[in-house]
């Protein structure tokens, strides 16, 4: 059962990569010239604060999945726990918002 789960995921990876390699090897159409300057030097990451807030919330969401699965069988206690968790996180987003962390650039 578990082997089957890994097998189909692995097989699809193999087949897609294999098809791409095959296409790259066999498909040689004419070239469309592209005259553009290199661009790597012109950019910087201007949203470091956004990235940090994102990380915190992304992890929070991950914690919610196991909680969501067992929620109905535990009942009110689980609800109260998550309420406290969400309250703390909401305080976090309110703080970030108030400090201007949600402004682009």
């Amino acid at each position, binding site marked *: 059962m578990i082997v089957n789960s890994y097998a*189909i995921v692995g097989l*699809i990876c193999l087949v897609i990569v294999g098809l*791409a390699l095959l296409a790259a090897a066999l498909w040689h159409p004419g*070239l469309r010239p592209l005259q553009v*300057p*290199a661009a790597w030097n012109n950019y910087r990451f201007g949203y470091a604060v956004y990235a940090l807030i994102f990380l915190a919330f*992304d992890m929070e969401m991950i914690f919610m999945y196991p909680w969501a699965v067992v929620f*109905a069988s535990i009942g009110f206690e689980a609800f109260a726990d998550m309420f406290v968790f969400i309250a703390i996180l909401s305080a976090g987003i309110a703080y970030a918002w108030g400090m201007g962390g949600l402004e682009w650039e």
Partner: protein
Amino acid sequence: MGVVLQMPVVLAALLGGALLTLLLERTLLQRTQTEPGPAAAVDYRHAVDPPNADRWLYPAGPVLALLGVALATVVIPFGPNLIGEDLGIGVFYFIVVVDFVVLGIALGGWGANTPDAVEACYRIVAQLVAYVIPLGLALVGAIMMAESLSTVAIVEAQTGLWYIVLQPIGFVLYLITGLMQAYRAPFLEPFAASIQQGVLHTSGGWQAMAWRMALSGVLFVVAAMGAVLFLGGWQGPLLPGPVWMLLKTYGLMALMLWLGTRVRLRSTAQMLALSWKVLIPVGLVNVLIVGMLILLGVGTA
């Protein structure tokens, strides 16, 4: 052993689903005359060789993107037994592998090293930061009621009543974040005409084909997952399961695309603001509302 049969069926489902998606989207775009975004025409007949491209990242982009949607198709059920593989962590797995498309666009865009493609790389990463959390919060509601991450179990939990009725806020959240996740109007900034469709302009030949499949496929899997989570998947009277599933998938897709054309295009900055100032707070409230409903005994078996 069975896997050898499952794999081509999954890939065929993706191929058919992506082709139908392209057909539907092109028809709709012709009627509404809006910016095509990821559905724009690509150049199959010419290869492109960007002068400063990264040798590995540039071709890896479209392959990773296509791989992401192919892996996502595995957990989409078209009937109680008509599914690539009912992975126990289905929905969670789905979220992870669909984001491979973002990774592919980011790598391909950065690797192409042209001003437009690198711009697309930045925009797509910002788009991910905007949509992942409200999308996840919309999904948490459905998982709480179904008490399972398995896509099959979630559909079976909706036998009596679809979750669109019990969780209308979650459904609306999914409509908006689904459009963000599929990069369709009004959230098509990474594929905007002003940067010549980003990675699409710097690709040709087999890469263009892979992008086409991946970008049509991502809308297909997003709409199909919406049908599974909120519209009861394959369930329905009279018609067989797979027909219902297809009807719901493409109905939801048409609704999303049409709604998307009714509002003006949003910039990445506007989308981030919308997501963090509106959608995430609403998503958190939705989780609490669904929790209260469950405590009151609504929607659980």
